[in-house]
């Protein structure tokens, strides 16, 4: 994983975990990689992954079963969407709006493109 973005690494790892859950690669009530496994895979300090997991527990996206590991929570999809949506609306969308404004584009133009994109990638 490349950490190019400006966000703190523990938050980038939170996005990575949310994406796995939203894409249903990691399913509800399934065990997810341990702190150490994810740290090795992503080549980061285990304390950083620990911080990510603490954060995602607060958001009720994952939970810890003592002695067994971390699991995807029942309401993970809904909670991950809420968390990511806030982030997207506050941080990414203004950038998109700014570029649209500079290029003289209106939201109507996006709709057919968005439909096509969904068909191409997630159909």
């Amino acid at each position, binding site marked *: 994983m490349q*950490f190019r973005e400006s966000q703190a*690494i523990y938050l980038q790892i939170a996005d990575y975990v949310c994406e796995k859950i939203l894409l249903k690669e990691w399913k509800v009530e399934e065990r997810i990689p341990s702190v*150490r496994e994810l*740290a*090795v895979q992503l080549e980061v*300090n285990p304390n950083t992954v620990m*911080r990510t997991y603490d954060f995602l527990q607060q958001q009720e996206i994952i939970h810890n079963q003592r002695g067994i590991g971390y699991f995807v929570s029942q309401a993970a999809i809904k909670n991950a969407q809420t968390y990511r949506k806030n982030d997207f609306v506050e941080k990414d969308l203004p950038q998109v709006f700014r570029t649209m404004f500079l290029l003289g584009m209106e939201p109507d133009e996006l709709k057919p493109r968005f439909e096509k994109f969904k068909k191409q990638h997630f159909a």
Partner: protein
Amino acid sequence: MIQIQNLHFGYRKKKIFTGLSLQLEAGHIYGLLGKNGTGKSTLLKNMAGLLFPKQGTVNVLGFTPGKRQPAFLQDIFMVPEEFHLPDVPIEYLVKYHAPFYPKFNEDQFNRYITEFDIPRSTTLQKMSYGQKKKVLISFGLACNTSVLLMDEPTNGLDIMSKSQFRKVIAGGLDENKCIVISTHQVKDLESLIDRVTIIDEGRILFDQTVDNITRRLSFHISFDSDEIKQALYREPSLRGSAVITRNTQGDESKMDLELLYKAIVLNGNAIQSVFNA
């Protein structure tokens, strides 16, 4: 785990440390940074009992390193920047050196050797510098000592090996271990260390956890000329300026270790004031 108080040290007339104090705890990976000749290696050697303080005390795991007691030596390992390995096959290294380290794990060692892609058929002297270094890193990690000191471990490692190095270190840390890595290769270790310690002019110039750094400071690209002017540190980049400012928004950005290092060396007081407040 490691307490250094008022350390004075020098070589002949050259003073290196003039009252250096530092505390290191278990469960962390420390990044030790500093200009050439500031004494990073000298500090590691004082911790390992390879050099003796002129004044002040060094305490590692409850021992005075300079006394070189066996109980101390079996629980600390140092990977120096320059080293000599005997001209023997890898198995001999394990056979004759591993018994000094009670927590040595041979399976673990073999796994690292495989991960680092080191040929088992050649003797150590016939290996390249990078390969020898990887053998020593693998051996050091497999010793499972409470303290692991590494001096410029990524020097001489190829691109794949640097990535492997981060993986084995990430997997090697646990709450009972303290890993100290001195380096100039800040990009190699940026995501691996959780505490930044900078030495300058014989003392500790800066010592903070990465969490604390990203809570207090914001690293970003700015286009706002007022913000750039007021930044704690600024540097022109292709688009806008790379700046370090106080973190007032509460959002945490990714620490740019190279930028932070330059900022502390060139404008240390401004950065320090953020942490002292």
